[in-house]
């Protein structure tokens, strides 16, 4: 239990650090902006209670917002993300069968499940984020293009990093 908390704290700091100091400066023509920090919320253990999940999601979102100077934007997107995560896990995972499997990871859940999980959660997060940022439907084509390319980039980063850490851990 203590180890899980420690791992999550390290993961949180690491992801926020990468997001705030590295990825903030990476973007392709403002079309593709990756947000892999959501990996922290995605990888929280199954047992985490809903209130704690939402609390952590809000905390993560607000931290990123603090670095991005966009109070509430990422927090709202993370709230959506947390809700979608709960629904998705309720629908696809039978709790009883995974009591000894603490986290929704690639190595534990398998590539197919993890990939769909990543795609769905990333899309919800990015759609919320980018639509709230634009705050309207004035330039719907531009918004959708940004959603598509940003999601592509984020999914790519998440899957790659999961592959890296999964290999290391198992070995």
């Amino acid at each position: 239990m203590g180890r899980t908390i420690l791992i999550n704290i390290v993961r949180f700091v690491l992801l926020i650090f990468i997001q705030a100091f590295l990825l903030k400066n990476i973007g392709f023509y403002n079309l593709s902006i990756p947000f892999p920090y959501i990996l922290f919320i995605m990888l929280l253990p199954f047992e985490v209670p809903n209130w704690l999940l939402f609390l952590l999601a809000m905390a993560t979102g607000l931290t990123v917002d603090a670095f991005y100077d966009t109070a509430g934007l990422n927090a709202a997107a993370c709230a959506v993300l947390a809700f979608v995560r709960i629904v998705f896990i309720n629908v696809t995972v039978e709790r009883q069968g995974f009591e000894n499997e603490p986290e929704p990871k690639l190595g534990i859940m398998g590539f197919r499940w993890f990939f769909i999980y990543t795609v769905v959660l990333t899309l919800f997060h990015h759609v919320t984020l980018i639509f709230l940022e634009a705050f309207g439907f004035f330039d719907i084509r531009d918004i959708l293009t940004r959603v598509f390319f940003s999601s592509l980039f984020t999914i790519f980063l998440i899957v790659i990093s999961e592959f890296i850490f999964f290999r290391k851990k198992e070995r």
Partner: protein
Amino acid sequence: MRNLWVFISKYNAFFLFIICFIISITLIIRNNSFQRSGVFNSSNEIVGEAYSRINKVQRYLRLAEVNDSLAKENATLRKDLKMSHFDDSLVQQSVVDTISRQQYTYIVARIVNNSIHQKNNYITINRGSRHGILPGMGVICSSGVVGIVKDVSADYATIYSLLHSDTKISASITENQAFGSLVWGEGNSDPRTAVLQDIPNHIQVKIGQHVVTSGYSTLFPEGLPIGRILRTKEKGGESFPEIVVRLDTDFSTLQYVYVIKDLFGAEKEILEKQSKKDG
């Protein structure tokens, strides 16, 4: 109450989501100027739309008032228009000539009322006694004789048009110097023609000969054009033929006329009166 708690705890994820999302949105709108302006702008749009709709109704209800005020304003504006002001500037031509003395001067006047279809036609002009117009003065226009001043007020004068049965103008035929008087009416009510009377039978009158003022009256200078002879008709048993003259002046389109002031007119009249008295 218990059921409510059960319901809320069963769907706690959803309610937590709602709470978190509302908090986030509040943060967004409070702290990000772009989204804030978006929200306030759209709310302003809604409020503005409501106001404009209500205003439409109010505008309709106030239509009568607005009409009255507009009419009032129109009246004041109309008062300031140029055409509401009486044109008081007087154009009076007089040529200073040391060899021959000036006999006639002309006062320009604009026609403000005119008729041609009555039995007796009158013209009103915007010049009156203040401008030196007296009853009995001759009135001409650029193309010929118009009439004789009848009555004069301070600012206006009425004119016996040539198309009046009482108007008699002394006229002569240029080609043979025969003179008679030009009248209108009495069986001839065409505004384009008049009748030259009192030309003796022995004078050869041809169609197309010019008729001008004779200079025997004090009203008109000699030789002003009146018209051309259109046709002649000899009446049986009378010594004077009826000569129909086509008038040069188109009375239906008259705009400006000149009132003739004869500087020697008074002198001549006094002299003639004296002769009559003596005779």
